[in-house]
């Protein structure tokens, strides 16, 4: 995202001077500075556009199968009484009062979500893992640390996203994607982060169980969020996609000669 903005800036600097009055002060950009490396501009464009040509450029569909989901008990929902009205399209059925989530739909949604995550990671976006379940807090934080991304499994302070400039300091960069391993907080209400991300135009990926509201989540993944096996599976999948996407990015940059080739090329073979 930042690279995109940088390339746009390069283009528009050749235009006429733009003055922006803010609070009575004047800021005027310098007239037509030629960018030092016009090749870098094109190469970056190529690197960014190439993954968009194929539907599953990062081959995330290979990472999991329906059997893996079934073995990890992803299809087990809550009891009929806890069912959310908006989750009914995602349910396969109800057996002895227990809701069963349709794993075919889960497969599609999970593939879309992983693909989107991979693209965000490829472009160097900030990914934030959120979960308010105490059981899995440590696991989620470790996953985020291993990917090189960020996690938030603690009490969500009100203005974290909406009041970021005052909470963190001016010029902070907000996450480009938020992944919810569980969309509910400890009192079984929808996590505040979903609504805040929607307010700040941040896309979300969320594992929605049969008692959750999937409406505000950009890429809902209907599935179980209570079983340790299921959550470990999700963490493993997200970690693998993000690492894969980042390695792919490094490979592309080396391939197009953007950064100096080092002896580590062999290490970045696809895992």
């Amino acid at each position, binding site marked *: 995202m*930042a690279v995109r903005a940088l390339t746009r800036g390069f283009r528009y600097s050749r235009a006429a001077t733009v*003055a*922006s*009055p803010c609070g*009575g002060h*004047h800021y005027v950009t310098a007239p037509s500075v030629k960018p030092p490396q016009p090749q870098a501009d094109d190469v970056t464009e190529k690197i960014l556009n190439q993954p968009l040509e194929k539907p599953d450029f990062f081959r995330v569909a290979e990472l999991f199968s329906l059997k893996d989901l079934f073995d990890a008990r992803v299809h087990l929902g809550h009891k009929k009484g806890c069912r959310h009205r908006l989750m009914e399209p995602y349910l396969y059925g109800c057996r002895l009062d227990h809701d069963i989530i349709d794993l075919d739909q889960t497969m599609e949604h999970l593939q879309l979500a992983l693909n989107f995550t991979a693209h965000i990671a490829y472009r*160097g976006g*900030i990914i*934030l893992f959120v979960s308010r379940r105490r059981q899995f807090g*440590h696991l989620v*934080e*470790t996953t*985020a*640390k291993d990917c*090189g*991304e*960020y*996690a*938030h499994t*603690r009490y969500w*302070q009100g203005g*974290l996203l909406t009041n970021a400039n005052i*909470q*963190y*300091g001016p010029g*902070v*960069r907000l*996450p480009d994607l938020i992944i919810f391993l569980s969309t509910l907080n400890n009192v079984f209400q929808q996590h505040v982060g979903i609504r805040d991300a929607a307010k700040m135009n941040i896309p979300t990926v969320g594992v929605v169980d049969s008692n959750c509201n999937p409406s505000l989540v950009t890429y809902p993944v209907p599935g179980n969020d209570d079983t340790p096996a299921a959550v470990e599976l999700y963490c493993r999948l997200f970690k693998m996609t993000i690492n894969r996407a980042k390695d792919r990015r490094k490979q592309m940059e080396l391939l197009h000669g953007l950064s100096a080739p080092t002896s580590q090329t062999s290490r970045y073979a696809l895992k």
Partner: protein
Amino acid sequence: MAASCVRTVGSFLGKCTKCSSSINTVATQVLLSRQVCVSSALCRKNLAAAGPEKFTLEYIQKQVEEYEIGKRHLANMMGEDSENFTQEDIDKSIAYLFPSSLFEKRARPLMKHPDEIFPKQRAVQWGADGRPFHFLFYTGKQSYYSLMHDLYGKILKIEKHQDRLRAKGLFSQDAQLISLGPSRWLTKEELELLLVETISTHDYDRFIKLMERMLAMPYSSTEEEFVQRYRRQLEAQSMKQMMPPLEKDENGVAFSTAEGRRKTSDSSVILRDCGSGHITINGQDYLQYFPVLQDREQLMFPLQFMGVLGRFNLECTVSGGGRSSQAGALRLAISRALLSFLSEGDGEAMRQAGLLTPDPRVRERKKPGQEGARRKFTWKKR
């Protein structure tokens, strides 16, 4: 009194002309003369909302450079070697060049390294591309939560270790309990200083509880080094008694000297192990110097408490104060001198009895608007 700042429309428009060049120049010249009043409420900044003053890295670096240059100038001024000019030398030079008789030491002129003056602040938390450095940055309290994360990780590691030992059959309940010695947990303020961020009481309690939980596990001695980082050693509860040394004079008689103070009296006592029980104060006999029984009782109490009444000879000098305070000063001096003749247990018994504690009570000053230290003037209804 409401001070309203008057801005002319001209100044507003002058700034806007460049951005929108479509404004008719004729119209602007007509409008330039009208005055627009803007109240100062719009201009006033909310000073409280900005928080404590933040210093940029460049500013602090500039201060450090100025400090180094100033140190060299000061050394040249005092005629000292500018290479080996220590902080103590700086303090002495400043005290010499700027003598101040202010009571508050912190209000006196000061020249210290900027790191000690400016409070520690957090550097910018993210890199050039905007990505934060710490993986828990978006929680708001990254140091505290990362500490909790590490602590929980250590608990899990210990549990795994225990499981492995149990599988091998080598697990024993009473093995290697962690030994911390006389130490206490870090206080909330000290933890805040360590983490360079504010934490609430609730957070601090949770941290201590989690630490205690880890210490309660059998094999926690592996993490001792980590735990010791968050504990402070307690100072020794009872200071070693300062015993006056036991000397021998030319006749081979053991004696010891001690001093004592009470209110404004100072006393000095030489205790000789003669066996006669003779007491001299300022050259006079004690019966003559202290006609009152109460004062003589004060003198005898340490010897009577230890049961050595007839054993020692006392040669005392005392000055200042009144009758009772002189007696108290002498009593303290005798008790101190007695320490060198007695065992540790007896010395502890004396300390418990309060014989070795100097009495801190002094005369309270009279305050203005009152008759005395506490007594107020008579209250008259009308």
